[in-house]
Each structure stands twice: as C-alpha cells, then as structure tokens.
C-alpha cells in the first residue's frame, strides 16, 4: 500500500533523487569520530543545526504563551516561567540554546578556518556561513528584548544607541529598529516581528543554500 502511494507520487514528481541524494553519499574516514576521535571537531556544524532545530521548536512553543506588547510581555513570560507546565524548561532551552548556538557556530567556524576548508572551490559556502553567523547574532539581539525586563530593556537601549552613532544612516537604523523616538511599544512589536518572521525566514533560506552547496561539493578532503 505504502509502496503504491510512493510510486504514484514518484511517477508524477520524480522524488526518488531527492532522498537518494541525502541517503546515498559516503562519509569519509577523516571526518568520522568512530575512526579517529579527533574528528569530533567535524561534529560542530551538525550540532549547530541540531540546536537550531531545538531553537525553532522551543520558540514555536513559546509563542503559544508570549504576548508581544508592553503591558503583557513581561507578565506572560513570568507566567510561562512560573505557572505553565514545563514552561521553565521550554524557556530555559530557548534561553540557553541561544548561547549554545553561538558557541557551536563559533567552533564550527574555527574548524572550517583552521582546516582551510573554505578554499577553492568552497569560497561561496564560507560566505553563506558568515551570513548565517550575522543572522544568528541578529536573532540573539532581537530575542534579548522580548522578555521586557530591565536587563532586556537597558541592553537593547545601549545597542540601539550604538547603532545610532553610525554616520549618515545611524538615525535611520535607530528609527527602523525602534519605530519611533523612544524604545517602547513600537520597538517591542518590531523586535518580535524581526525575531519571529524576518530573521528566521532569512536563516532558513541561507541554511538551505548552505546544505545544498555542501551536498553539491562534498566535504573537503583530509589534510
């Protein structure tokens, strides 16, 4: 039955090559920690993706309770943290996962750098990876404001003021981020939109490119 359904879809859409591409590649010895323990450094990219998936899932659950307005934001986070079943775990995973993603991505970047894996022909994937890094920093910056506590408010205020000192476009950046003269209701709404829609969209697109390119080119050879 299942096979018939699969064949029916495959006949029309030719889906076999899609999954065969993921399943049918070989993993060389030099990146396999089962053969050389030191090859664990090749795990950091995968772990970054793993934690990114956790971030997306935990973030989806957080939005079930979080209310992005200045009156309720703090109260909803407090409720989530103290009252909701497992809320403290879900928020904890999102909070600490944000730091872990940065750590894992940093280690992955260093592995790629010090093994010279960004060299010809993989220059473009390095650039895409750096863009992912910047998007992640943006997610960290915008997500930090959302609990709307003092830590969040004043850290964001400093960040926005630093952005405002950029010559020529500083004021524009500030207004784009805050949505007005002060850090207030508009800012929270904007940061929520950027954190939940704009940047994750960019992130998923970049991750897709990152993975397609590495499937095309394969992982770099042993040193």
């Amino acid at each position, binding site marked *: 039955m299942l096979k018939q359904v699969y064949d029916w879809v495959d006949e029309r859409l030719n889906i076999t090559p899609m999954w065969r591409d993921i399943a049918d590649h070989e993993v060389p010895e030099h990146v396999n920690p089962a053969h050389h323990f030191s090859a664990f450094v090749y795990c950091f990219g995968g772990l970054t993706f793993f934690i990114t998936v956790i971030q997306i899932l935990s973030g989806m659950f957080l939005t079930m309770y979080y209310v992005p307005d200045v009156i309720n934001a703090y109260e909803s986070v407090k409720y989530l943290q103290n009252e909701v079943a497992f809320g403290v775990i879900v928020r904890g995973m999102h909070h600490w996962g944000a*730091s872990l993603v940065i750590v894992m991505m940093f280690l992955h970047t260093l592995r790629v750098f010090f093994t010279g894996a960004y060299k010809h022909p993989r220059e473009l994937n390095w650039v895409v990876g750096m863009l992912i890094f910047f998007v992640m920093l943006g997610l960290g910056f915008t997500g930090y404001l959302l609990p709307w506590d003092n830590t969040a408010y004043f850290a964001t205020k400093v960040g926005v003021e630093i952005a405002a000192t950029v010559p020529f476009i500083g004021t524009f950046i500030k207004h784009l981020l805050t949505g007005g003269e002060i850090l207030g209701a508009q800012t929270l709404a904007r940061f929520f939109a950027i954190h939940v829609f704009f940047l994750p969209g960019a992130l998923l697109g970049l991750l897709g490119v990152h993975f397609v390119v590495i499937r095309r080119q394969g992982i770099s050879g042993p040193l």
Partner: protein
Amino acid sequence: MANHKNIEYVGDSRVPAKRVQNISPSYAEFPGKNEPFWPNFLLKEWMVGAVALTAFLILTVSHPSPLTDKADPTDTSFTPLPDWYFLFLYQLLKFPWASGDWVLIGIIAIPGLAFGGLLLAPFLDRGPERRASKRPVATSLMLIGIISVVYLTWAAMDEHKAHEAAKHPQGEAAAPSQPQGGEQPAADNPGAAIWQKQTNCQGCHGAEMQGGMGPALTSIGGTLSAEEIKDVIQNGRGNMPPGMFTGSDAELDQLVEYLASLK
C-alpha cells in the same frame, strides 16, 4: 523509479523525464574506510546528538533562565549589560581611542575590518595550502582575533562585577544567596517577630534575610546605621520601592532597631 513514458508534460516548466541525479562526488579516492551516511553513519551520529542534548537539558534544569524586574525606563540605577556574545563589541567602545571623537574606530573601523576580513577570508587567503601551520598570516590573524575577543569579553564581565560590587559595598550582589556571616538573627528579639510578618520584604531579601533579588540583611547593621535603615525602608533605594513595610510606626522602629543590631 516509475515508468515516465506514460506521462505527458505540457509547457516548459515540466519536470524533466530524464533527470540528472544530484549525487555528491564519491570519496573513493580518499584513503581509508568510507561508510554510507544512511544508515551506518547516522546510527553513530545520533549518539553525539544524544550526549549534546543531555548536557543541554542538564544545564537547562539546573540553571533556570533569568528574569529581572519588569522594564522600567525611569530606573536610572540599573547597569545595562548586553548578552555575553556582544560584550566584546561593547567593551571595545570603552577604550578612549575607540569612543568619543574616535567612536567611528570602535563601531565601524575595527568591527568592519574584523568581520569584513572574516566574510572575505577565502578571497584574501587564496593560496592552495590548507594546513594552518603553512598559512602563518591567516592563522596568526585568526589567533589574534580569538584572543582579543576572549580578553574583551572577560574584561567586560570583570568590570561589570566590580561595578555591581561598588553599588552594593557589602559585596552582597556578588553572592546574593550566601548569608553574609554576622550574628544569627536572635529569635527572641521583638523585631525578629515583626520581620517574620513582612512578606513584602521577604519576597526580595529572603525569608531568612539571606538575600535574593535584594541584598542579604544578615549583617546590615554593620553597613547602615539605624537612621539609614529606616530611611531606606520608608523611601526605597535603587530597585527597592518605598512603603513596602506593613505595620505601625512603633513596629517599624522595633524592626529598624533589630536590623541595626545585626552586625
């Protein structure tokens, strides 16, 4: 794969009947033991994920994520601190040669050079050599970058801790959950009984005065005089709101006397 001869396609956006399979290059030329990604490698790889997830969950359960008081734009005593992975940029702006008139060095020139160089690394380091030891310029620049970031992050945290300690001279901010020496509260003192009824105070300072959101009070008498304590209770200080005490003026005096006796 199914037989495609049965299908008729219309237009140019059709799925091609003969598709070039997107199979990545074979690693057959590499020495050693290759193994298929599916299922052999993935069966081992999940263990790495399981170990990482376990460590992650232990961290999550043992350290609940912080939540300070609700944002209060009028609170001037709060010391802002960005998340730790932005601290190196924040600390950079504290150098006199990267702030004030020279702020463009701090916000544009140095981060621009560092992140621009990182972004364009493959086009700057174009030699065929891949080993880190054979690329001294790239390797040493990266090492300098890592050391700078680590140092700046550490310096920012260190400065923040020193600043918080200066705000609370008793050093209570550094270890709010540790009772700070001093005499144990004497249970027979009438002030002690009044303290037991002050749930507002206990909310921040802890039921046993061990501290929490607010500083510990177990040796407050060594820092503040009776008049100062009374003033703080009545008028608030820093994050502490005024008028949290409930009871008569006589009871307040007894509590103040009791607190001042804790040295």
